[in-house]
């Protein structure tokens, strides 16, 4: 138990540090001065507020720590979360399926649902690579971009439709996964991370600079929307449209709802494939690879095939998601495929508790849904996103769902803490 005087002293030191940290940025501001030179303006009030908040935050944190130290630390929060997980997952699924059917729901919420489901799918796809096989991939957005641009280019030059392209995009992305996977087979840990990041950047830079093919930074316009058995969702409502066929009034919400169910189906497909694969030899080989590469090799598991299939299958789902993204937006440009996207998806996987399907879905809802609702705070949105990432990581380093049920077990499968699960070195 620390004494109040100590706490106050500590908080004041933090205040001093905060003054020096914030001084140049919040206390001063660069402005345009005379004849093109820069000038400085002062903002003492803002600086005082920031320093005051830092002191208060530090003081409250110390008080809370004292309080926590005196309390009996017998909270079985993790067990409770896991137990309720049995009900949360089906409840979420039912909510996801019925969301667009809620009477009077605003179209923008369904649209937000589409966005969240896209990230859920990306998270589940990356989870195969990071959560199951333990390969740290910082360039996952490359496969998302491959999927999106495959569809955009095929439809632009050859008039392919969404449903024709969807499998092609998956195959192309998987092929890129294998192609990029080969050179990195020998690399481990952070060397692997930086090369995957480099591949992500290479693909983005090539797309940006190959103007004659991809339109460069201007992107590709007029990507067709998906059709329902050949029926389009045209607002004009002429022959061959959904509204005309079913004799209903054309409404933008019809297309959003359709898109929502497509991405929901794709995401559930990803989840189903992952869950099935985990029980099969391939999935078990992935998890063995994550736990111990050398033991894995000495047991006769083919590392090359195991790593490449993880890359390929993860990439394939990234490709599907990319194809969907292109058809949803109807316009894509290289700006959508920056490193920040890879980082966001990786953050979703880690925040969810790497390897947990439900955790990834919850993390996607929190990380994508909450900032999207903060539209009014547009300029502070990413600032809040950054603060949230750091805070959540510090509070729950193992992610939301930090327990796991082993895929294979002798006798009854017991839930174990994820501290007992290795994160892989490949």
């Amino acid at each position, binding site marked *: 138990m620390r004494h109040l005087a100590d706490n106050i002293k500590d908080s004041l030191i933090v205040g001093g*540090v905060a003054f*020096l*940290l914030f001084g*140049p*940025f*919040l206390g*001063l*501001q*660069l402005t345009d001065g005379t004849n093109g*030179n*820069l*000038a*400085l303006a002062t903002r003492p009030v803002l600086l005082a507020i920031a320093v005051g908040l830092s002191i208060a935050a530090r003081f409250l944190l110390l008080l809370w720590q004292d309080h926590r130290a005196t309390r009996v630390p017998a909270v079985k929060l993790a067990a409770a979360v896991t137990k309720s997980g049995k009900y949360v997952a089906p409840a979420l699924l039912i909510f996801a399926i019925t969301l667009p059917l809620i009477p009077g729901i605003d179209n923008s919420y369904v649209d937000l649902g589409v966005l969240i489901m896209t990230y859920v799918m990306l998270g589940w796809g990356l989870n195969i690579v*990071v959560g199951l096989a333990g390969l*740290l991939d910082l360039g996952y957005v490359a496969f998302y971009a491959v999927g999106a641009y495959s569809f955009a280019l095929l439809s632009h030059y050859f008039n392919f439709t969404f449903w024709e392209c969807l499998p092609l995009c998956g195959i192309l992305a998987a092929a890129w996964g294998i192609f990029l996977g080969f*050179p*990195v087979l*020998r*690399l*481990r840990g*952070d*060397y692997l*991370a*930086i*090369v995957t*990041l*480099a*591949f992500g*950047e*290479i693909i983005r*830079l*090539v797309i*940006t*600079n190959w103007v004659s093919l991809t339109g460069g930074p201007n992107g590709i316009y007029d990507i067709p929307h998906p059709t329902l058995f050949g029926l389009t969702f045209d607002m004009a409502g002429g022959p061959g449209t959904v509204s005309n066929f079913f004799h209903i009034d054309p409404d933008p919400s019809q297309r959003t709802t359709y898109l929502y169910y497509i991405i929901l189906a794709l995401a559930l497909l990803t989840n189903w494939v992952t869950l099935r694969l985990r029980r099969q030899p391939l999935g078990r080989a992935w998890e063995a690879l994550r736990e111990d590469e*050398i*033991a894995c090799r000495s047991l006769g598991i083919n590392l090359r095939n195991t790593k490449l299939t993880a890359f390929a299958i993860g990439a394939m789902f990234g490709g599907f998601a990319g194809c969907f993204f292109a058809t949803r937006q109807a316009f894509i440009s290289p700006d959508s495929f920056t*490193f*920040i996207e890879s*980082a966001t998806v*990786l*953050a979703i996987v*880690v*925040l969810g508790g*790497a390897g947990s399907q439900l955790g990834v879905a919850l993390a996607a809802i929190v990380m994508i849904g909450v900032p999207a609702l903060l539209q009014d705070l547009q*300029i*502070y949105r*990413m*600032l809040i*996103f*950054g*603060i*949230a*990432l*750091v805070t959540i*990581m*510090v509070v729950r*380093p*193992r992610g939301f769902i930090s327990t796991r049920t082993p895929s294979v077990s002798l006798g009854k499968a017991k839930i174990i803490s*994820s501290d007992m699960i290795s*994160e892989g070195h490949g």
Partner: protein
Amino acid sequence: MAYALQQLVNGITLGMIYGLIAVGYTMVYGIIGMINFAHGDVFMVGAFVGIIVLTALTGVTSVPMGILAALILSAGVCALYGFSIERVAYRPLRGSFRLAPLISAIGMSILLENYVQTSQGALERAIPVAVPGGFVLMNENGFVVQLSWMQIAIVVVTLVTLGIFTYIVTKTPLGRSMRAVEQDAKMAALLGIDTNRTISYTFIIGSALAAVAGVMFLLYYGVIDFYIGFNAGIKAFTAAVLGGIGSLPGAVLGGLLIGLIEAFWSGYATVAYKDVAVYSILAIVLMFMPTGLLGRNDIEKV
């Protein structure tokens, strides 16, 4: 010939800046084994403190004194940033899951970028050329190879900074404890080294080096915005990996190589694909030397 010489001069200048940032990456990696993604943004913060100090001192002091003040103040503020970032975002996660500090670092990077953007504006900020002129190295059929004073200053300041840094790491008690913690943190702690303090100093020194690089970048290019940290950070990290992460001479070597590749690729091939060239060379080098140029080959015991 003259053209190649000019590219060589430009490449070395750029490489020195990358090398300075790469040293910070490689030090942190060596000592706690994490990729400090926020390091590139500390470099950007350094450049901004530099521009603020230079603006404040315009007309108050002479130009060399202003630059010196910018270097010292920027290094001080950034050292404090490095220290605070480690305390807030990384220390609580020490000994935890390997990906946790990585995500925390990515969060810190996003946070710093947007903090500078919201507090100082998203506009590019430019300063007039601080030290104009230079001297002519070579004149070949009218093509003048110029070595500007600024380039000389960058190389000199970088070499002096690296010299001080090498002295700290190899000769002082602090450097000894840093190397000890790098080799085996647990054993170092058993022998009475305060590992937490050593790690804090590592961040302080690395951030101060990044700040020097930031001010150099500002003076060399004259234009900065809140986003420069990302590209420079990725390049410097690439440099650290290329040289063999954890190796200090490797970081400087990697930085120089990346700078030279960029300069020569821009000069002889296409500017647009210079980053593609850098990343491709990284991938190719790592394919054949999976631990970088000067990296140690870890022997894994089972």
